[in-house]
């Protein structure tokens, strides 16, 4: 008797901690999956889409993890890292690297930018502890709009990237054909019927995810988690809290730079100017949907969240369209992801450290 009550309590408690929005989103995706065959959507294609989009976006979502761990909150300043990646990508092409090698060079060139920008960003966030998320958002916006001017002014010459008629200023979209289009996805790609699995990209993601996982098991990684969990405790235990936070910001920024390169090799294009503007929001909501909170996140949250989020992104248009002949996917995506972020921000336990 009492057993059953505690059992029920336990289920209720775990449901509560899971959160209603998360439950609704998961339920919604399940519903979509079940509905898909009935409304004539091709399930293997759908699943293949989800896997592909997971492979593009996974690293960007992974970039949230270090900052969440060190207590800097959700990295709304993701665009800063993305800009480092874009600088790497465009410079790699400008310097004449081609093929898959250009991907490697893009990473190499992006890294110093990410480290420097990340260090500056981390320094700033250490100055304004407590107000990280709002300022991160606007640091991202400012840097994207500053780079808009830079893309026009920087002396790029590669004919594949600049506007044809004026011969200067980068184009808004640059095709990666001949450069690193599918550079990772092409490695060991598996095709079964309609399903194609970008093994290389998935392995690359796994590699980075393992790296983060391993880092969190080292001495410094442990310190990072402790800083996020209770900065005063960490300070009393002799940890230099500012240094650890700075490290986490640099890691997040670097991962964002790599993340955008991985995204581009899958997508096939570099998108400049205002494109990185709102890229933080899908990544933020993805990791929250995956079960993370403002100051707790795991690799599992990243994987689950990205799959759920991308699942909704790819499934809703087709299933909804076939079902009620209304493409409400955009609206549903906005409501679901923003609702998720709102929910996370208003959680009391997550709000107070």
């Amino acid at each position, binding site marked *: 008797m009492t057993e059953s009550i505690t059992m029920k309590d336990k289920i209720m408690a775990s449901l509560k901690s899971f959160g209603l929005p998360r439950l609704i989103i998961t339920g919604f995706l399940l519903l979509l999956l079940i509905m898909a065959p009935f409304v004539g959507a091709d399930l293997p294609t759908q699943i293949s889409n989800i896997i592909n989009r997971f492979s593009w976006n996974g690293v960007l979502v992974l970039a949230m993890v270090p900052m969440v761990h060190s207590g800097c909150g959700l990295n*709304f300043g993701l665009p800063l890292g993305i800009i480092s990646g874009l600088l790497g990508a465009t410079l790699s092409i400008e310097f004449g690297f081609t093929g898959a090698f250009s991907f490697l060079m893009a990473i190499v060139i992006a890294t110093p930018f990410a480290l420097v920008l990340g260090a500056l960003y981390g320094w*700033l966030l250490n*100055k*304004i*502890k*407590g*107000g990280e*998320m*709002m*300022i991160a*958002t*606007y*640091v991202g*916006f*400012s840097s994207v*709009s*500053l780079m*808009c*001017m830079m893309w*026009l*002014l920087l002396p790029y010459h590669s004919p594949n990237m600049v506007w044809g008629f004026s011969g200067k*200023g980068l184009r808004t979209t640059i095709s990666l054909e001949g450069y690193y289009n599918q550079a990772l996805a092409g490695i060991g790609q598996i095709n079964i019927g309609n399903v194609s699995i970008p093994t290389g990209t998935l392995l690359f993601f796994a590699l980075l995810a393992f790296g983060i996982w391993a880092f969190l098991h080292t001495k410094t990684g442990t310190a990072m988690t402790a800083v996020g969990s209770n900065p005063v405790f960490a300070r009393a235990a002799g940890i230099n809290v500012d240094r650890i936070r700075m490290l986490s910001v640099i890691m997040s920024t670097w991962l964002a730079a790599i993340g955008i390169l991985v995204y581009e090799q899958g997508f096939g294009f570099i998108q400049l100017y205002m494109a990185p503007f709102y890229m933080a*929001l899908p990544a933020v909501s993805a990791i929250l949907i995956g079960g993370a909170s403002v100051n707790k996140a795991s690799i599992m949250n990243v994987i689950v969240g990205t799959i759920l989020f991308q699942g909704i992104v790819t499934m809703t248009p087709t299933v909804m369209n076939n079902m009620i002949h*209304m493409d*409400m996917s*955009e*609206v549903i995506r*906005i*409501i679901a992801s*923003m*609702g998720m*972020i*709102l929910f996370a*921000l*208003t959680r*009391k336990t997550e*709000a107070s450290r």
Partner: protein
Amino acid sequence: MRAGSNKYTTSEKKNVDYGMILQQASVPLMFIIICAVCIPIAGLSPSYLANEIVTRMGRNSFLILSLLIPIMAGMGLNFGMTLGAMAGEIGLILVSDWQIVGIPGMVLAAIISIPISILLGIFCGKILNKAKGREMITSYIMSFFINGIYQLVVLYLMGFIIPIKHSSIKLPRGYGIRNTVSLLRMRQHLDNLIAINVNGIKIPVMTFIIVGILCVFIIWFRKTKLGQDMRAVGQDMEVARDAGIDVERTRIISIVMSTVLAGIGMIIYLQNMGNIATYSSHSQIGMFCIAALLVGGASVDRASIGNVFLGVILFHTMFIVAPRAGAYITGDSMIGEYFRVFVSYAVITLALIMYETKKRREKSVSGQQLRAEQDRDEAKASGKGGNV
């Protein structure tokens, strides 16, 4: 023991104030310099420039004034003013479908927008009460969330559940509203109601009268019990609660008022523009209003009516001259466009950083005072204290 630091506190206070004044003036000063440099380069005629600025003052002041009340209540910059803007747009869309035109159309749109604004404001206020200390990021995300709901209503429910008759505003597919809704028969009706022309500069007197009424209202409101309560809540929630003020309710009211005013402001804004960009008119409005207010020298916790008008003038002067000046300097018209976007975001970033560092400095100042006091104490006591 702490009483010993009294004199110290007061003298320190004065120094801090000078620094504060300089810091508050720094952003407007920077903008005056930007404008002073860009105006000659842009080469616009003074009358054109003056005309544009007067028009934009009439157009934007009301919206920006709507931000003042939440600042007073300590809730920071209300990024959720977009909610009111959406309510105003819904009012205008309905009114233009019913073919109510001119000033009556505006009044009716305002009356329709008010209950919507109130509902959205209550919702927003309740959520913000759950996210104390991170109001701004929450209201910012809130504006996106409600934008989703707005799209659901306007793009799918209008014409489907909410009757929309005219095909000029309805999408051809039978439901949803077109990307642009023309307000031709409302366009500048308010501005032209009493318009006088001074040296070729058209002054929309009626619009300014309405803005003036709002200013008077805000000044009056500060003197009311509710205004006093809001100031108290804004400065110290716990003390206000101990004194028996209903903190949560007061905060919700401040957001509701801001949302309602933003809705009316949006109607004034759009009557000047002459058409509604259904899905994008509101999305940037919050950002531009906040940037303008901050340019006027306001900060996250302090803003006055003067900041609003100075901000509109400086920010929009920059906005008008930057593309031209940018084009002249670099030969590329886009540079100026991006420049003004960058400046808008940068000024908000700067204001937020200044606010957060100020908060932290206030904490450390008290520490330093104690430290200095103890240094003196130490000097005084040295020699007296012995080992035990």
